[in-house]
């Protein structure tokens, strides 16, 4: 026999089940309509050596990898029909640009670009929110993003220029690079990045370097209020200057004192010294952050 309480519970369960069922139907319908609104478009171009490829995506990711031949292959998936992709091809210059249409909103305006380019092509990519990723290239790489996370890896013999507002930046395995990185608030993480010039500037972000500073390079890392941490192997060949105007400096790396310095080191605020043949020059500067130089384990 059904008690009033059981009956009420039963009714309650039925109602919950119905609500869940309705939700599932609505969710599936929404997802399928969203999926149907997505459009995948493929663009293919055959280009010569040293081509230039630019992808300007207002919202959404751009992932770039090397192609196995002299082709640029772009697969662009638009989130809805409120955004389209414009293409321009002039000789060996290829430009693809996302173009918002009336009715575009934060939920339907992004485009996902999966790109393959010849390894020696020059690449420029831009997105407000990203993420932005480029790997295994030998041509120059220029990346701009507002809050977009940026990840660049396995690049050699090329210029790598990255600018973000507060998007975090990771560079890994960059060899013989001319590297210039700027961010206002994004943390900057460099892993095995070497080259004749590595210049990193931030306003409030943290800068981390893990690597051996190569041979014969000029490394400048500067952040206004952020901290700098460099982790270096014991066999690194460096000439280090570290200065903080108002913050502290800390050194756990064995350095030989220098006979001549351009300034008088102030304990706790700055240090100078060399290791090995002092092949690379390393300048670490912060206005009010902290600098730490460590020996890697």
């Amino acid at each position, binding site marked *: 026999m059904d008690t009033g309480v059981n009956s009420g519970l039963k009714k309650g369960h039925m109602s919950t089940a119905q609500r869940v069922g309705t939700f599932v139907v609505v969710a599936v319908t929404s997802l399928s309509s969203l999926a149907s609104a997505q459009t995948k478009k493929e663009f293919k171009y055959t280009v010569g050596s040293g081509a230039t490829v630019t992808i*300007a995506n*207002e919202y959404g990711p751009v992932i770039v990898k090397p192609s196995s031949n002299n082709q640029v292959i772009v697969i662009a998936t638009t989130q809805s029909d409120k955004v389209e992709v414009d293409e321009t091809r002039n000789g060996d210059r290829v430009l693809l*640009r*996302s173009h918002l*249409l*009336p*009715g575009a909103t*934060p939920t339907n305006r992004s485009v996902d670009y999966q790109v393959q380019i010849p390894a020696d092509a020059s690449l420029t990519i*831009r997105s*407000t929110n990203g993420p932005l990723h480029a790997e295994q290239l030998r041509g120059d790489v220029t990346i*701009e993003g*507002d*809050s977009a996370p940026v990840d660049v890896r396995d690049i050699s013999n090329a210029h790598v220029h990255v*600018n973000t*507002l*507060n998007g975090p930046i990771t560079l890994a395995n960059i060899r013989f690079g001319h590297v210039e990185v*700027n961010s*206002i*608030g994004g943390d900057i993480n460099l892993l095995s990045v070497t080259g004749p010039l590595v210049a990193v*500037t931030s*306003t*409030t972000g943290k800068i981390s370097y893990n690597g051996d500073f190569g041979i014969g390079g000029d490394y400048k890392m*500067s952040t*206004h*209020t952020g901290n700098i941490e460099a982790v270096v192997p014991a066999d690194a060949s460096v000439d280090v200057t570290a*200065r903080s*105007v108002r913050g502290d400096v800390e050194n756990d790396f064995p350095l030989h004192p220098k006979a001549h310095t351009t300034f008088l080191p102030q304990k706790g605020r700055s240090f100078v010294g060399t290791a090995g043949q002092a092949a690379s020059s390393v300048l670490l*500067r912060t*206005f*009010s952050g902290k600098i730490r130089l460590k020996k890697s384990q």
Partner: protein
Amino acid sequence: MTCSEFQDILPEMIDGDAVGEHAVHLKACSDCSELVSDLRAISSGAKLLCADDEPSPRVWANLQRTLEAEGLIHAPSQAGGVLLPSRRHRARWVWVGSIAAVLAIAAGLLLQKHESARSQSAVNQGSTVPAGATASTTEDGDDEQLLADMSPTARSIYEENLKSVNSSIHDAQATLAQDPDNDDARLFLQDAFHQKAMVYELAMDRSMQ
């Protein structure tokens, strides 16, 4: 005809041919002839520049539809009317580029001043003026104009980052005001201007998109 009289009709001369006594003067006077030639070169260069920067009519049509949909403008009464950007609006992004350039130049000047201060520090102690002091006086107005056309989301990101970079400029300026020979503070001020120029450049690139 004197050069002064000739220069009164210079504007007509740029796009047209000289006639009568003007033509005679133009032929005879090398100064005026050179001036007209330069002005014509600038004029044709400027026309090319405008053509390069002008987005396609489709862009303006889309912009018009968006603004109409948002109720910010009303459809023109004439059929087939297409919204064209006002000169003022187009000028805005040219202006943003100029500000970025000015900031970069300010940073460059700081470096130059820094180099010069280093070489003369022994004889010049106490006389160095923090060069960034004047450059920052217009920053709030410039920043407001930069942010004015942005969507709320973008505005919030740019506002936050401008705040950080302005704070770093003030920070370095304050230190320089106390210690004008502080080379480190001067270099940080230079970096801060470079960073601010980068924010303006990113905003400009974004607007071009």
